[in-house]
């Protein structure tokens, strides 16, 4: 023993290097998907420099992706735990509806002239509504151990049905003008839309939570190997519940943002938001098998479909092609992830 120990030690010394930044970049899915995004922007800029590379294009691009970005940040956490949440779009509508109805009720049926006091109550109502759906999802998935796909498929229908019930299936259209003007269309800091600022702040908080805190670490651990996490003394049930709560909470905020922007509950508009959020998250390198993913990747994943759509519009290619292109990128992203896992498991 004593004679072999120094020899082992010496090999150890050389062995604990950190990989260089270059090596880590090339190894990351996010890097490649970021390249795709940059390439797309370059191509469209070269094709139509006068129309594509304008402040207006980027402003609308950012505004249109803000709501989806907030949903996708929540989705990133859920998918990293190897779960899924199909209900986010319906919860968004439900939260917007609760918010709209609350503000109307507080202003005798027409909230168009309501002030910030009423709006604040509306925001709180939206967030609570979203969080309640998040709790229902989390409870059924983590405690009752029903597969997330089934639970959230159920709550997807239920939340939408509940939203219809609240206003007999029609939209709430009396949204405070002041809310629409400030959060919906207003800009700050020399032209940055307020809606975008909110989305950016939420995304930054999400990134901080996922990548630097214990909450984030446990999210990866639960998704990577729930049994190992449990054996390490991590409260897996509680953690999963919290993750779905967070997603519901963010869907509530997204509902409020959507209401501010469209000045309507847009009951029929968000039915594909769940799939768009999942697609964005997965394209951004988050693994459907859990344990892998990043908020930065999700941001890129949100922008790829948006840039494609804008680009196709500007270059007058029918934007139905966008759906086909996004589908192809999505499948390619999952294929790369599968290949990575297979290569690893064969060792």
């Amino acid at each position, binding site marked *: *023993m004593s004679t*072999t*120990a120094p020899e*082992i*030690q010496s*090999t*150890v*010394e050389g*062995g*604990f*290097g*950190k*990989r260089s930044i270059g090596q*880590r970049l090339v190894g990351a899915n996010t890097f490649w998907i970021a390249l795709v995004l940059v390439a797309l922007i370059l191509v469209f800029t070269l094709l139509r420099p006068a129309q594509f590379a304008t402040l207006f294009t980027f402003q609308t691009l950012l505004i249109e992706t803000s709501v989806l970005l907030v949903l996708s940040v929540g989705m990133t956490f859920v998918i990293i735990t190897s779960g899924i949440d199909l209900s986010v779009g319906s919860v968004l509508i439900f939260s917007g509806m609760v918010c709209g109805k609350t503000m109307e009720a507080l202003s005798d049926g027409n909230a168009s002239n309501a002030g910030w006091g009423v709006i604040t109550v509306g925001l709180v109502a939206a967030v609570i509504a979203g969080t309640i759906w998040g709790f229902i999802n989390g409870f059924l998935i983590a405690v009752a151990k029903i597969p997330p796909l089934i639970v959230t498929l159920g709550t997807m229908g239920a939340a939408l049905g509940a939203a219809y019930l609240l206003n007999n299936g029609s939209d709430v259209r009396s949204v405070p003008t002041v809310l629409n003007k400030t959060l919906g269309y207003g800009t700050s800091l020399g032209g940055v839309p307020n809606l975008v600022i909110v989305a950016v702040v939420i995304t930054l908080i999400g990134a901080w*939570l996922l990548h*630097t*805190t*214990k*909450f984030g*670490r446990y999210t*990866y*651990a639960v*998704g*990577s*190997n729930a*049994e*190992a*996490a449990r*054996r*390490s*003394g*991590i409260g897996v049930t509680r953690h999963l519940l919290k993750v779905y709560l967070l997603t519901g909470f963010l869907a509530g905020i997204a509902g409020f943002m959507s209401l501010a922007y469209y000045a309507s509950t847009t009951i029929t508009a968000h039915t594909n938001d769940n799939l768009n959020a999942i697609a964005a998250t997965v394209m951004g390198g988050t*693994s459907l098998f*859990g*344990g*892998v993913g990043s908020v930065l990747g999700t941001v890129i994943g949100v922008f790829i479909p948006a840039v494609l759509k804008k680009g196709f519009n500007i270059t007058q290619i029918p934007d139905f092609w966008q759906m086909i292109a996004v589908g192809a990128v999505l499948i390619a992203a999952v294929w790369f992830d599968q290949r990575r896992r297979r290569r*690893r*498991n064969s*060792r």
Partner: protein
Amino acid sequence: MSDAVLLDAQNIVKHYGSVEALRGASFQARAGEVTSLIGDNGAGKSTLIKCLSGAEQPTSGRILLDGKEIHLDSPTTARRLGIETVYQDLAVAPELDPAANLFLGREIHRRGILGKLGMLDKAEMRRRAVEEFKRLGVTLQSTDVPIGSLSGGQRQSVAVARSVVWASKVVFMDEPTAALGVVQRERVLDVIRKVRDQGIAVVLISHNMPEVLSVSDRIEVLRLGTRVARFKAEDTKLEDLVAAMTGALTQEEVA
């Protein structure tokens, strides 16, 4: 070798419905020694380990640690008492790096307000992980790759390290070298010896008799849910172990 019994399990009985997995099994482990627990399939080794590591609760029987009776209602309780377990499978999170795995469930927070908010001190955890890996002689090319991309032997070494770093009294290892190659197996056995030399009681379950004889100080044999024989490894031959396992030799009266 010390003679003080650190972990003393007496007459452990465990029923699963009408099935008697353990029928009054006893077991002793000493500090600074490797005690192997062997027996044929279904002899009750894994059940006994589960009872002693808190994963299952015995139907009856006493467990003493340092002479004091303890009740292990969960693995967390066992861990708090300094008892760790290395599982055969499912022991690590493959997507996390070695340092994150080592500190899983025991993360170090940053100082001050950021730590209160839940921020982790990754640099400190990584530094201490490298220190511990060096101490245990675990070699890794890199500490920031997911553990799943390491070889089987390295992965298992990290899993072993993960438990022994935190163990202050007893480490259970349920076939830690199963499915490993010769070199990798030797590396894990080296780690086991290093742990023993720190004065921790190591309990090893293995089906590999030459391995058991080479690494153990003592060997206890289970058959049909009870202990049937105890050996000191230095004066034991392979045939004795096989005889005890198959029932050709019985030293102890069945309780």
